[in-house]
């Protein structure tokens, strides 16, 4: 895998995700990490950025359980009687990212705890646009 040659854009971000890897950007000038693939540092404007492999471990910082769903989620079977959870995940390396939260009881949000440990799970990995998702970390051992 020749990571250095891939363009710093969303096409590469999703191509990496398809390979099961959450890749973002590290600014070589100021060290700023971004979980979004961008060609220029948003802090210091340096163009000297490199790919950075996130561990895929993080914690749930905020979330919502959505019952009135967009068409794309409706097609996957979600809706009023089958809500899903989306959240803001703080990666262990620091940056935050929005992600689908799977393996939680979205119909009973009071049972979902902010601060819970999460681990990366790429959803729809076969498609060209896989979905960035996380699951509760302990589920790995089930």
């Amino acid at each position: 895998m020749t990571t250095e040659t891939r363009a710093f854009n969303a096409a590469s971000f999703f191509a990496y995700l398809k390979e099961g890897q959450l890749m973002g950007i590290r600014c070589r000038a100021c060290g700023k990490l971004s979980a979004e693939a961008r060609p220029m540092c948003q802090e210091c404007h340096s163009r000297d950025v490199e790919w950075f492999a996130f561990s895929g471990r993080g914690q749930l910082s905020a979330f919502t359980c959505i019952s009135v769903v967009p068409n794309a989620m409706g097609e996957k079977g979600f809706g009023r009687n089958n809500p899903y959870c989306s959240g803001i995940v703080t990666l262990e390396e620091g940056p935050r990212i929005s992600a689908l939260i799977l393996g939680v009881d979205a119909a009973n949000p009071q049972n979902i705890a902010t601060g819970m440990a999460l681990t990366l799970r790429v959803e729809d990995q076969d498609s060209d646009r896989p979905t960035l998702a996380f699951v509760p970390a302990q589920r790995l051992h089930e």
Partner: protein
Amino acid sequence: MAATLSTARRRQLGRPVSIVGAGLSRFGAFRDMTTRDLFVEAFQDLIDQMDQGIDVEDIECGYIGNYSSDLFEGQGHTAPILADWLGMTPTPITRIENACASSGSALREGIMAIASGMYDVVLVGGVEKMTDLPTEGVTDVLASAADGLYEVPAGLTFPGIYGALAKAHMDRYETSLAHLAKVGIKNHTNGALNPKAQFNTTLLDMMERRKARAEQQGQPVPEWRDEMDFLNDPRANPWIAWPLRLYDCAPITDGASCVLLVSSEIAANFTDKPVHIVGTGQASGRPLHDAVELTSLSAAREAASQAYAMAGVTPQDIQVAEVHDCFTIAEIIATEDLGFFEPGEGPRAVDEGRTARTGDRPINTSGGLKAKGHPVGASGVAQVIETFHQLRGEAGPRQLPNPDLELGLTHNVGGTGGTCVVNILRRG
């Protein structure tokens, strides 16, 4: 640079700008009306309401906020169509898009066009025709105001992102579902006094009507004792994006708004009661996941500090405000971001009635987006219109009792904080 945000440079307008007239369409769901029909209705209202009349030929330029006539009704390049329907060609009109802050930004373009010295008389406004699409379609269109690469694929919707903000606020402070419900009850109480509001009724009346309908139809009559009881019934108030329920959300609305801006030097040619724009600020923000705080919109704080600096006033000087309550939690966060209350104190202020019409800090006397309705591209200027009427003492049954009203503020948010526009108005 980020580090300089809270110490906004004190910018000044090249010359003063005043509002001398305002027009609003009805707000609601109007099946047979298109974008142009709605805007013509608002424009006719403006002409009818001008204190000393206006010759349309005198209007030199226009800026109209519109989020997405393209996606809502399949019509792009809206501005020249509006110019034609207003009988204003060849006057230049430009469409401004900043999601739900589109007309807030259009207003700023108009202000700057006059302040630059280029024009003396400018029309600004906004319009949105939203009800042609089913709710799923509207959800998709509104979600496209979020980041299509890094937010929408996570399943986040417009209510979803505000739901996450609400959850973060609840985790950090004492905020509860009851606080959110009280914001809605208050705004519907105000909306009941606004004949242009989409929901020109209190939640209590809405509840009683539903009981009466059930009785008429021979169905079991719900045993709701009061609004809070009604709002806690999941059949009446289902989840949209937990912890937000149906009555936490502004409705889907068709509507249009416009005001006439002029150079203050010539304001007396139009009215004896101009309202001056003494402060204006606008800022951009990042997606929620990249925000500094999950309980605040940084663009709102920045836009507010710009506007306060230009006007030379503090949050405590503001006597009336229209804030962007696209969701009930958004009003609570707005009152904190604007400096009316300390972070985390917004919910208590609601509990204590401080933001009611009878409180010391009246918020959304129009009914807000929640009850007045939220035709997204029209909302920013509609907020300015309510403030214009309050400052001129012509807000009818919802007029604030304070006879010394002088300073008002509007706070208009695009998307989930990507854009915020804050204006400060002073009675002339």
